[in-house]
């Protein structure tokens, strides 16, 4: 079984409230919901471009 851990976040627009972010080639503006897979993009959370909206969810494919 492969487990993919996904977390939902909301784009904040950063310090200016107007900054877009781009993840996997897709652009998100402030207020958009973003799902992160893995840890490599967590810098966007640490630097305030994303804030958590819900508890982590797990999706498994058997």
């Amino acid at each position, binding site marked *: 079984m492969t487990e993919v851990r996904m977390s939902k976040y909301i784009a904040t627009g*950063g310090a200016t409230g107007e*900054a877009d972010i781009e993840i996997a080639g897709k652009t998100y503006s402030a207020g958009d919901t973003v799902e992160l897979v893995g840890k490599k*993009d967590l810098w966007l959370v640490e*630097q305030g471009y994303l804030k958590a909206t819900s508890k982590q969810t797990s999706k498994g494919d058997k």
Partner: protein
Amino acid sequence: MPTFIHGKNTAVYIDEFDLSSYFNDVSVTLDNDTAETTAFGDTNKSFILGTRGGTLSMSGMWAADTDGSDEELQALLGNATTPILTIRQGAAAIGSRAIIAQANETNYAISNPVADVSTISADFECTPNQVSNLTFALAGGVQLTAGASIAHGSLGDLSSVDNAASSANGGAGTLHVPTNTVGGNTTIKIQHSANNSSWADLISFTVVGSSAKTSEIKAVSGTVNRYLRATASTAGSSGSITFMVAFARF
């Protein structure tokens, strides 16, 4: 072994003009005033550091072209709006070094020798203005564009520049648009990334209007991540745009 560069690839952007083809020498000088504190009984002179400053001196050929050296250097002398300058060092390539500055033109001279080409020279004195933490009122950074013309349909994310590490003290970015025939607004941004994969806007320049030529300098504070890139997009369906973007970390 040091990597030297040749001065022949230098480029000069002043406000919305690429004046490179008119100049053949650009000098950048940084200075720091000192005040003498030598007192009676001292054997050696002593000094304390005062304020820092920067100047740019340029010389080249006189020309009466529209948007050329004479027209623009005359217009900038005494202009209430402080010009924005970017001096490209080295090749016209993303990642090449660039010096960015805000500087008032303080001197403009024309020389007409009987046996030689008519020449010009101009001096600029740097002032921080909107970018108050711009040390020496100028800063060394990197080019985020090659300064070449890009067709409206080819705009997008440009190659990234790796600084090897993030920095913590903000920075400033400059934009110069000397040529623009895009039939619609163009949005130009500087983005940063911690992993060269996901990106966030660092600086969003004012939207460039249809066929508009413009320039702008904007500063940011705080973390600037390891990777930087310029990105541009337009809703226009015709034309092309030439723009230079540079960014200096503080």
